[in-house]
């Protein structure tokens, strides 16, 4: 067969569906992913975890085929030699130290005790837990626990890393450090799959995204391209300040702003159809106003509005 001579994509899903009884988990998804960080975006229940569990051989596809490095993960555990998986499960062995936990799991890759310990120290260092690795995991914060899970997935230097909601429940500092770890892995040329239901998180990590909605593949491609489409649609910017009315006067004259509202006391809502341009003029107006601004938010800049736009777009088309 000629296909053997062609490079096999790291992750390949061919018309994969997964039904839980009558409930659809994944519906006719075809995907090929190779190299770099890919964000899997989707609301809760969109099928992100189902997709990952199919990849990890936890679930058997109802239809279609799943291949990792060209191997079916349901019947063969061989691909896991080259895969690191961070599940959404929060439970760890609380009585173990991080080093213990990671090196025990490292030994399942066939490492000797010493190799496992050396590699574990290395990856724990990499995820920024070098000073606490001898403490019991039970005493860790949520962000630290997430990083332990990431460390265990990296301990054998895998080619494919699958992270299910790695930023979930983390504080901003942990979030930043986990994001930089993921970006670093992408830079090392590994294939990384990260799922999230928060657009901004994915945006800070990668541009390559897959959007799942109700078990279906909704969009795949570059986040910026999708984002640009979205930006040209009506957007709101919410500014909290001392005197919204005087600030509004300065905005109303400018080009991408076509309307203002005062939803609450001390709040100004600007309506625009070019978010990027609106953000580019925003700093100078704020500086000129001499007002104390307590926050600037983009309430439409989230997955829901992106999905809403894409679905609306699809419905329109």
């Amino acid at each position, binding site marked *: 067969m000629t296909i053997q001579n062609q490079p096999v994509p790291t992750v390949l899903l061919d018309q994969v569906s997964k039904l839980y009884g009558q409930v659809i988990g994944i519906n006719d998804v075809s995907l090929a992913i190779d190299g770099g960080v890919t964000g899997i975006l989707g609301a809760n229940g969109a099928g992100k975890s189902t997709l990952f569990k199919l990849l*990890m051989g936890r*679930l058997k596809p109802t239809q279609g085929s799943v291949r990792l490095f060209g191997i079916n993960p349901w019947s063969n*555990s061989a691909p*896991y030699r080259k895969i690191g998986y961070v599940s959404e499960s929060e439970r760890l062995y609380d009585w*173990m130290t991080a080093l213990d936990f990671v090196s025990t799991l490292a030994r*399942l890759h*066939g490492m000797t005790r010493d190799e496992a310990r050396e590699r574990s120290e290395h990856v724990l260092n990499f995820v920024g837990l070098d000073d606490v690795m001898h403490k019991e995991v039970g005493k860790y914060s949520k962000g630290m626990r997430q990083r332990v899970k990431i460390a265990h997935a990296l301990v054998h230097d895998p080619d494919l890393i699958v992270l299910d909601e790695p930023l979930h429940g983390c504080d901003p500092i942990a979030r930043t450090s986990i994001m930089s770890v993921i970006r670093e892995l992408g830079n090392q040329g590994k294939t990384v799959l990260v799922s999230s239901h928060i657009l901004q998180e994915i945006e800070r990590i990668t541009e390559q995204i897959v959007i799942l909605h109700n078990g279906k593949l909704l969009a795949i491609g570059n986040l910026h391209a999708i984002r640009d489409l979205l930006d040209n649609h009506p957007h709101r910017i919410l500014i909290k300040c001392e005197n919204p009315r005087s600030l509004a006067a300065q905005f109303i004259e400018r080009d991408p702003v076509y309307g203002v509202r005062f939803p609450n006391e001390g709040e100004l809502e600007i309506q625009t159809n070019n978010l990027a341009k609106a953000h580019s003029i925003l700093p100078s107006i704020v500086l000129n106003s001499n007002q104390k601004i307590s926050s600037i938010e983009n309430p439409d800049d989230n997955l829901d509005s992106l999905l809403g736009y894409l679905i609306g777009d699809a419905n329109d088309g």
Partner: protein
Amino acid sequence: MDKNDKTLADTVWTRLDRKAGAIIELTARQLRHRISTWVVLGIGVALMALLLLFYVDSVRKSFDPIDNDGDSVDEDNDGYPLGQEMKYGTSDYDASDFPGSGFYIPEDEIDWNDNVRTFSGNKTWNGAAFFQYEWIDYNYTGDWWDDIVDWDSELSSCPDGQIFIDWYPSYGEACIVDTDEYFIYGKWKGNGLATVPEEWELRWGYYSESFEVTPDPPEMYIDEDDIDCFDEAGNRVDCPSGTRLGGSHGFDNDGDCLREEYMLSETNVQLALDYDLYYRFQDDRNGNGIKCDVFWLVDADGNEVIGISADDNVDEDPNDERYVGELSHRTFIIGVGKMAFVILLGLFIPLFLSLGLVRDETENGTLHFLLSKPIHRGEFILYRLLGYLAIVASYVIILALIVGLITATLGPGDQFFRFSDLPVWLGIGISTTFVLAAYGSLFNTMGLISPKYGVYFCIIFGIWEFMMGTFSIINPNWTVSSISITHWALQMIDAIVLMAWPDTLQWAEIGLAFNIETGLSFFWHPPVHTLGTQSPGVALIISTIVLSLVSFSMIGIGQSVFSKREIM
């Protein structure tokens, strides 16, 4: 050879080893961090401590000398214990009948149809007669309940008319006929002329010389007749004899079978036709033609005692430290091994520790970490079970050896330490390990097949196993009980006991034959499944194979169930 110049075996095996090692270690450490593990294992230790207390309190007491045949008592308070009275053939229910008291020897009689109806002399009489006396022994007097005439109460004149026609005396009565003549019906002593009424009878005889016998202290009749065995040369050896098992053994150490000082010689006994003493004198009850011996019956190849038959009063009060102690000690070990180790620990440890070995990991979600590693799910189950076994097997083996060390130090016998106990305790530990493996893999599989209801199945199964285990102890030959895991582990213990103490068969027979009721023959039976060889080794191998097969098939079922299971 792969590119790193390692042989295939090298790479495959060391990698397997490392994975196995990691999961086994993880499982063992996990169990160590669970409170339920320590509770279950702690209860096991407490149970053993309790049984050891029982051992010290009860089993060790049985090493104290006791009067097995009950012949140290003196029922009639004549100062002579039963054992001494038996030697002299006297009764322990009659204070006038005691060693040296002399006894009645019958001489002759006048029958109901004899023509000569008178006899004169100084005799002890028994019957009905008009007695013209020269002398009457008024000291030989009786009470209303014996047959001896009561001379102490006032005698009246006999009524008019013909005796036995017009009036009837009662037995043991006398009445006055004339100044020197009585009518007497009963027993009396006197010198004179007796005339027997028509159709009545009179017997007479004399009492043998009385002599002085010093009463023995009752302690003499405790452990006074030990079990005796002899070798080919006739030298006394420890029982059961290693060199000459079968044949005539036994010796009547206390002389209550041989009865050399017995008051009746055999000729006298022949004379005493009407005297029940004859029937008391039985010195070859087992009918092997040898008086006062113990016959040990062996099987065809002569190495197993299958029956012991003792003449009356031979070897009937054995040395308690040696026999009762040894039997109780062995019974304790076998009983504890079977009931406490195999049935209780064997069932409850897996019920608490193995049911959730894989199931709990699934429920906690920690399974995802383990299964995202290059390890087959089937392998995972096997290593989990090995990790569980590593903990529980070392627990039961160490526990068995500790209990073994204590009882081997406290146990009966001359030696300071009973080394021969240790293989049995080790065997108990190993048998329990096989049970733990079989139940462990079964319960784990049940937990996998039905995470919700598996535990109920396991409890019902546990009740079945408990019942079958109990039946297997009582009667291992009952075929139905072999459809259980405990049965085969109990068979292992039976076989190991017989291998470590080959004389246990004899000991069980000794317990039965000499009425040493320690329960050895209840708790221990020769192994059943020997394919007709009666070899404990064969039974041990068969039981081991059966238990291993159960374990492996259960692991196999669990593996195939788990491999097809979708994990959320």
